[in-house]
């Protein structure tokens, strides 16, 4: 278990440090994920060593969105003032994206 956690937190740390050093505008955790995929592909990390721990985090991710989501209580004013652009863009962009992505992929098959 600690080997898996060490790998996950190690790549998280590596991602954050690379982000600081390179000044790239990418979240450090995403950079850590990309580096971990490359390390798995390059055979530097064995899937078995990290699989169980990673799947625990992925399977239990939902609860982690709740605290940042509750933060919306600080922005109720903004939400009410701009309800039309917010709802309009959400619904229309959703339909446009799902239809065009599907059609483009079918055409390019």
């Amino acid at each position: 278990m600690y080997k898996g956690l060490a790998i996950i937190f190690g790549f998280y740390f590596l991602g954050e440090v690379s982000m600081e050093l390179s000044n790239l505008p990418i979240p450090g955790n995403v950079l850590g994920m990309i580096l971990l995929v490359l390390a798995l592909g390059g055979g530097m990390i064995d899937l078995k060593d990290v699989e169980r721990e990673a799947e625990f985090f992925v399977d239990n991710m939902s609860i982690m969105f709740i605290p940042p989501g509750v933060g919306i209580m600080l922005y109720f004013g903004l939400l009410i003032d701009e309800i039309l652009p917010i709802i309009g863009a959400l619904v229309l962009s959703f339909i446009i994206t799902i239809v065009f992505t599907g059609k483009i992929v079918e055409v390019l098959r």
Partner: protein
Amino acid sequence: MNLLGIFLTISVYFIFSRLYHIRKKFYLNPVMLSITSIIILLYTAGIEYEVYMESARILSFLLGPAVVSLAIPLYKKRDFVIDYSTQISSGVIFGGLIAILSAFFIAHLLGGSEDVLLSISPKSVTTPIAIGVSEQVGGIPALTAILVIITGIMGNSIGLAILNLFRVEDRVARGLAMGVTSHGLGTARMIQEDKLSGAVSGLGMALNGVLTSLLLYYLIKILMRL
């Protein structure tokens, strides 16, 4: 430390995920119901967000290692990436760009402020990545989180009906359209429908997360100048 926040979050989520387990309806989404109930409870008791966050912060900190862990499902599906490389790359690149640009311009046309434009742009990306990207481009992560979840609920509830209405029939195309547009919640629905579509949907979601985190900062810089 004030332990209210973490206790409240875990117990409220426990109740709503139980309920969702019994009745799997999109409007019973446990994350959305938990957020709403916690806000109501905090308001009623007159507790400020900062006080709630003192201990609840521990849970959102775990989003860091959770995003790194997404490497594992992505790596496990590497065979699909090779088998359907053309469809996947075109779907993720075009779909990812359409999602950002359509949301940005429609919100702009309807009179949205800068805060809303920046927060709504990453709305098709999986929540943990979207929260980080929103922070990076100067949006409001809390607003982004809500918009992402609503986008996911739309995919979960009406995504298949829209794909059928517009006659998108190819299984790979359907999966990519769903994953790129409606991330995890859309993917969950797609897995119930078809195994191949579901797998491709998960892949589309992960790769769109990577693409959007690489592109959005620069794209927003160009868009804000227009």
